[in-house]
């Protein structure tokens, strides 16, 4: 049949590319992870070996704190920007979303300009109190970098939801005497929850896998992606690097999958 054959032709390039450069390499990665000195146990090295476990815990905590902080800031900013028309709104939105295109290395460098040895914060505190405050290379600097690249993407997601929220609902709650916090709890946040799940999961997954920012800041704390990199290039331990990669990939994929099914359920339940 003509249309059958045509459908096959349409999907052929995609099938070849995906099999050759995605499915096959991921299978090879899995094989490599199981071929280390520990064999199958190599898959669990991320939790069984203290050094890797500590790194996993630091990365998880950093990613969770980043997600919570990003959601808080983005939810406030989205509500402030939604349904408010003012001069320069388009420009402001553009500026808030430009960092989406910055690679992690650039974000790391921006944090150095902000809180590094020649940084803005340091030179201000130096002229005020005489001490040069440097935080770019600490865990706090890393957190600020993660916040920098997380806020724009989460803000876009929540802003889209906030603009769909009917202002008359908030108005009604207010005229019935509800306090601002009660309006948030009972009216606004329930409506934004699906977007917050999706945005939050995206933020968490990106933070877990972020490499460039940590690479530029060269922090003493080893986040998981840095660990994969050093394990592969410096220790030339491919099977260990592969095992950690698979664990990390599984965590980020699961976070996104859970949030997606959750958000879908909320939408269909509403």
């Amino acid at each position: 049949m003509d249309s059958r054959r045509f459908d096959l032709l349409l999907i052929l390039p995609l099938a070849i590319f995906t099999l050759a450069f995605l499915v096959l390499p991921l299978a090879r990665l899995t094989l490599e992870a199981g071929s280390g000195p520990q064999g199958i146990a190599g898959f669990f090295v991320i939790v069984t070996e203290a050094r890797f476990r500590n790194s996993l815990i630091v990365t998880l905590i950093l990613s969770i704190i980043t997600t919570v902080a990003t959601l808080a800031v983005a939810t406030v900013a989205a509500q402030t920007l939604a349904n408010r028309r003012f001069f320069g709104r388009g420009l402001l939105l553009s500026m808030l979303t430009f960092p989406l295109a910055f690679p992690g290395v650039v974000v790391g460098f921006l944090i150095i300009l902000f809180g590094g040895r020649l940084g803005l914060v340091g030179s201000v505190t130096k002229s005020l109190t005489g001490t040069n405050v440097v935080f770019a290379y600490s865990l706090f600097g890393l957190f600020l970098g993660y916040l920098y690249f997380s806020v724009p993407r989460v803000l876009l997601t929540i802003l889209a939801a906030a603009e769909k929220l009917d202002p008359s609902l908030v108005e009604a709650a207010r005229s019935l005497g509800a306090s601002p916090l009660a309006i948030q709890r009972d009216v606004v946040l329930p409506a934004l929850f699906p977007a917050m799940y999706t945005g939050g999961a995206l933020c968490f997954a990106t933070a877990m896998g972020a490499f460039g920012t940590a690479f530029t800041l060269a922090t003493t704390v080893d986040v998981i992606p840095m660990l994969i990199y050093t394990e592969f290039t410096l220790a030339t331990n491919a099977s260990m690097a592969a095992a950690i990669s698979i664990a990390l990939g599984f965590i980020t994929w699961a976070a996104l999958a859970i949030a997606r099914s959750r958000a879908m359920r909320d939408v269909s339940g509403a």
Partner: protein
Amino acid sequence: MRRQWTTTAGIVITALLTLFLLVPVLLSVYAGLTVNYARGISAGFTLDWVKQVWALYSDTVWRSLVVALMTLALTLLIGVPGAYALVRRGGRFARAVEEIVTLPVAVPGLALALAMILTYGGAGSFRQSTLFVVVGHVLFTLPFMMRSVIAVLDTIDWRTLDEGAASLGSPAWRRFLDVILPNVRPGIVAGSLTVLTLSIGEFNLTWMMHTPMTKTLPVGLADAYASMRLEIASAYTLVFLVMVIPLLIGVQLVAGLTEKRTAS
């Protein structure tokens, strides 16, 4: 009035956020154009750092452009027909394929790069070529192109268009080229701009996959951040911004246009 303090707090937080995102970028632009960053404005401004960056790193700029265009060509050839095929087919199979193709968005770039190197590291000439980096970029950007095209296909009645053309005796491939493609053009344009922007900024995959002969702009940036003085690093960042910001403006213009079209 209680209403006012929450509104004021919201405006203050949004303003602080804007400053947090914007000030470091302005600092970087300023540092790239100043004679001596440590001495401040009094030292004056210069384009010398930008010239030095061009002398040292112009090859990475050209390579990034070439990689981005090759990535775009491949995502168009693979992604657009693929997206149409998945929408035509529908059902569980199409969802499963979409899930697999979207994996590179969920799986960290480092893991994908490692998988590619383990699989094709032995294939000397492919491993050494720019094409290796391009394949990595296609892996990462393909889901964005496909999603953008699928989103448009979902809003148009492609089945009626296709069947209408078929009843007039047009063969399947002509219907795809002459009827379907023009109708999904907004999705293709939006997807293309996204692919170009992502490719020019891609670091995680490229850092692992590049060789000394296939350095892209972000790889050069990482190199400059680690080994060059602050002014050169900043001037290099400025070159990156000049390349990527027009693309971002394009993305937003296209998004605004399609929004208007669907609203009217």
